[in-house]
Each structure stands twice: as structure tokens, then as C-alpha cells.
């Protein structure tokens, strides 16, 4: 499969569907599409035809192209930093706005809310969470996860609570474990809190009027080329209050212009209102 055909396919996909993957990282998106061709035993022309004529297939395609890996309390050190250094400073605000952009199946949204509950911040917090993939949004709303697969997060949770000095808090406060069904379900008082909705960061305007105190966008930008990354980070920048923070994945970084507009601490980037003469 030549490079031209694959780029051409992405252009056709953009033309015939609501989805635009043209500015995803070349090598990565090409590989995802090659995998889809292989899994469905199709060639490029068959894929294109199916894309143009079968809407359900397109939704499945988006599910296959996008990456939905996430974890409860992913990178505990980040949560520790947020809990001790960032979240407490939100206490003085009347209401706190949080956005999880690219929330996948919701594990980080719930990790966030559990810590907010520990800090007594839950009641005056508004959380919105978005993802391009309809299917993961449905999963996120349920807040029910495979127990066997997620068992190790009990340990992560305990060690985090220990470090944070909340030894009395246990996992059972937040999750209903069902060994027979092999599930763990986030309890209702947490599950009902976030508003999940489908939203495509790349193609759609940001659907919120409010500004945010914290935007989580973890391991999403890595799938975009540098130009698209810049475009999305600009949107985040505009949507953050001064002093608001953007939380990225462990090995993501801001490049170019916006590198100067945030103060970096690990994977937590604080919007700086410092006057940058060069750019004004």
C-alpha cells in the first residue's frame, strides 16, 4: 500500500464522514488503517466503498482507529502532585470546572472525583468529559469495570491514600465489588457527577461556554501531528483560567509557541499570565 493511497483515503473519509484523521501522525495512522484492512481482510478500495456507504461501519472504524487505553489512577505520582499541590488551591473558588478531553472509558474522571471527595470539593465541582468515540462514552457513563483486570488498582489506591495521609479511606467507599459478575462499579454518588458527551476535538468547536480550572488531556495529543497539536493546545489555552492547569500524559510535551505560555511541573502545565513581549 503506497503512501498516496492511504493519504487519499483519509481525505475521502473526511469528505464523506464527520471524521478527519488527516492530521494524525503519519506512521501511526497508517499502521492503524493497515491493521483494519488486515482484520477485515479488505483492500483500500473495498475499505473506501464501505466507508462511503455504511455508517455503522464508520463508527466501528473510529473505534478501531482511536486508542482507548486508560487506567484508574494512571501515574500515581501525578495524582499525588495534583492532590497535594493543585487541588487544594481550588478550595477558595465558589465553583470548580474540570474538563476531561479524550476521557475514554472514564477511569481518570472517576480517579479525579474520588480525590475531590477526599478533599471535600465534590459538591461545588462541575465535571465535563468528552471523547470522539461513542462506544467508550457509553462505557464511561456506566462506570463499571472488569474486576479481575483492575484488581491491582486497589493497591495503587491504598498506597496513594497512605501517602496522602487518608488511611481511613478504603476502596469500598467508592466501588461496589461483585466477584460473581467479576465487576467493580463506581458508586452512584460519584457516577452521577460527571457529564459525559461525544465530542471531536479536531473537527468541532469546543461545546462549552465556561472556562476551566483543570483540563485533563492524557495521551491524546501524541496521535496528532505537531501542527494539529498546536491547534488543540491553543484551544485549551483559551479555555483555561489564568493559573489553570493542563494535565498531559507522562511522555507528552508542549512544543513551539505554547511552551512559553505554561509553567511545567512534571506532566502538569500551569497557564502562565506572564507578559510575553515577543508574541504580543
Amino acid at each position, binding site marked *: 500500500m503506497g503512501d498516496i493511497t492511504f493519504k487519499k483515503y483519509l481525505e475521502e473519509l473526511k469528505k464523506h464522514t464527520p471524521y478527519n484523521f488527516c492530521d494524525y501522525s503519519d506512521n501511526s495512522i497508517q499502521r492503524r488503517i493497515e491493521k483494519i484492512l488486515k482484520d477485515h481482510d479488505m483492500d483500500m478500495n473495498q475499505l473506501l466503498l464501505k466507508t462511503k456507504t455504511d455508517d455503522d461501519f464508520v463508527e466501528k472504524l473510529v473505534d478501531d482507529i482511536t486508542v482507548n487505553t486508560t487506567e484508574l489512577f494512571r501515574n500515581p505520582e501525578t495524582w499525588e502532585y495534583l492532590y497535594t499541590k493543585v487541588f487544594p488551591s481550588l478550595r477558595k473558588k465558589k465553583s470548580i470546572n474540570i474538563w476531561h478531553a479524550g476521557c475514554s472509558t472514564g477511569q481518570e474522571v472517576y480517579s479525579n472525583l474520588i480525590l475531590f471527595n477526599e478533599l471535600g470539593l465534590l459538591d461545588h465541582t462541575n465535571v465535563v468529559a468528552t471523547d470522539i468515540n461513542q462506544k467508550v462514552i457509553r462505557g464511561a457513563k456506566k462506570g463499571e469495570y472488569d474486576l479481575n483486570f483492575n484488581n491491582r488498582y486497589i493497591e495503587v489506591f491504598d498506597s496513594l491514600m497512605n501517602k496522602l495521609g487518608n488511611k481511613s479511606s478504603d476502596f469500598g467507599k467508592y466501588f461496589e465489588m461483585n466477584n460473581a459478575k467479576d465487576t467493580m462499579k463506581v458508586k452512584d454518588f460519584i457516577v452521577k457527577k460527571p457529564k459525559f458527551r461525544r465530542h471531536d476535538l479536531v473537527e468541532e468547536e469546543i461545546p462549552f461556554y465556561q472556562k476551566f480550572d483543570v483540563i485533563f488531556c492524557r495521551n491524546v495529543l501524541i496521535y496528532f501531528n505537531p501542527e494539529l*497539536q498546536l491547534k488543540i493546545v491553543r484551544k485549551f489555552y483559551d479555555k483555561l483560567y489564568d493559573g489553570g492547569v493542563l494535565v498531559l500524559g507522562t511522555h507528552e510535551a508542549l512544543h513551539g509557541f505554547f511552551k512559553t505560555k505554561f509553567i511545567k511541573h512534571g506532566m502538569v502545565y500551569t497557564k502562565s499570565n506572564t507578559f510575553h513581549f515577543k508574541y504580543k
Partner: protein
Amino acid sequence: MVKNKPAYYKGIVIGGSAGSFSLVTKILSRIKPDFKYPIIICLHRLKHIRSGLLEGLNLKSNLSVVEPYDKLRLEGGKVYLAPSNYHLFIEFDSTVSLSTEEVLNHSRPSIDHTFFSAATSFREKMVGILLTGANKDGARGIKDVHNKNGFTIVQDPKTCDVDMMTKSALQLFNPDKVLSPEEIIDFLNSL
């Protein structure tokens, strides 16, 4: 087939499992300090040990070793280690793309992924080296490097602690060279 030696290499890609750590350390401690090309290393990590590998390598290495951030551009004479829990891909413009997509061959990072993407982006301007390992990950990837005319080296299974990785590769294709660790070091220093 005898491959023509290219005028330069865009990268040297080395894959191995957790057990190859000491060998990689040895290679990096013996490589000449003015080595010209970028070296990309993909090692399987032990799940619960997330740090220490980078520090360990840097302690002994003659070249500086980093765990790259997404979209970092590769530079000659530097060593790039695939970060824990991310796949590392090489883009056409010699930048690194990271991904958290599903594990491949039970591995993330997966050596196959790094080899496949490097083969696609570097073509004949690369050397792929597969070291000792207890998993088939890496075998199909280095074969792809070979198919796209990159130069391939597989560690001689006789010198491997665990030879599953290298034997799997040798069942799939004939690499340009099968070498002992000492010979791999000499080869790299002759580039």
C-alpha cells in the same frame, strides 16, 4: 544478496527483552563517544519497575540516553530508550511518536512496533539489531527491516541467556549477520 552500504544511517535500532539490559549496558559503555548516528533502543520492561533503567544505562553509557517525549527529533550520537508503557514509533521525518495502543506480543513497548515503523521510515538507511530475549516479539519486526533492505544483525543464540527471541527471528529469515556481543560492539564502532 549483498547490500550496498549507505552513505549514512538514519538510525540504529536495537531490541531485546528485560534480560538484555546488561548487554545493552555493555554495548553503550564500549561504543565510541563520537558515534555519529541516533540509537533507538526498545527493551521489554518488568511491569512493576517503572524507573531505574534509564539511570542505570546513563551511568555506564558513553552516549547520553533519554526516554524521548512525543515528537522529539532524533539526533546523531544520542540514545533513545522507549519509555515504559508506551510503544515507540519512528515517523518519516525522524521524529518519535509514542502510543499507548494495545499491547503487541504481550508487550508495551513492543519491539515489533519499533522495528516496523523504523523499517518503513528509514528503509535501507538503518541497522536493526535483535538481542537475547524470552518472547517472540521482535522477530517479525526485524524481518520487516530486512525486507525493506535495512541491515540486520541477530545475536548469536549460542551467546544468548535466553534464545527464544533470536531463534524465532532466525527461523523467519537470514539476517545479514549473526554476531556475538563482542562482534556487535566492533561492528557498531566500525560504522
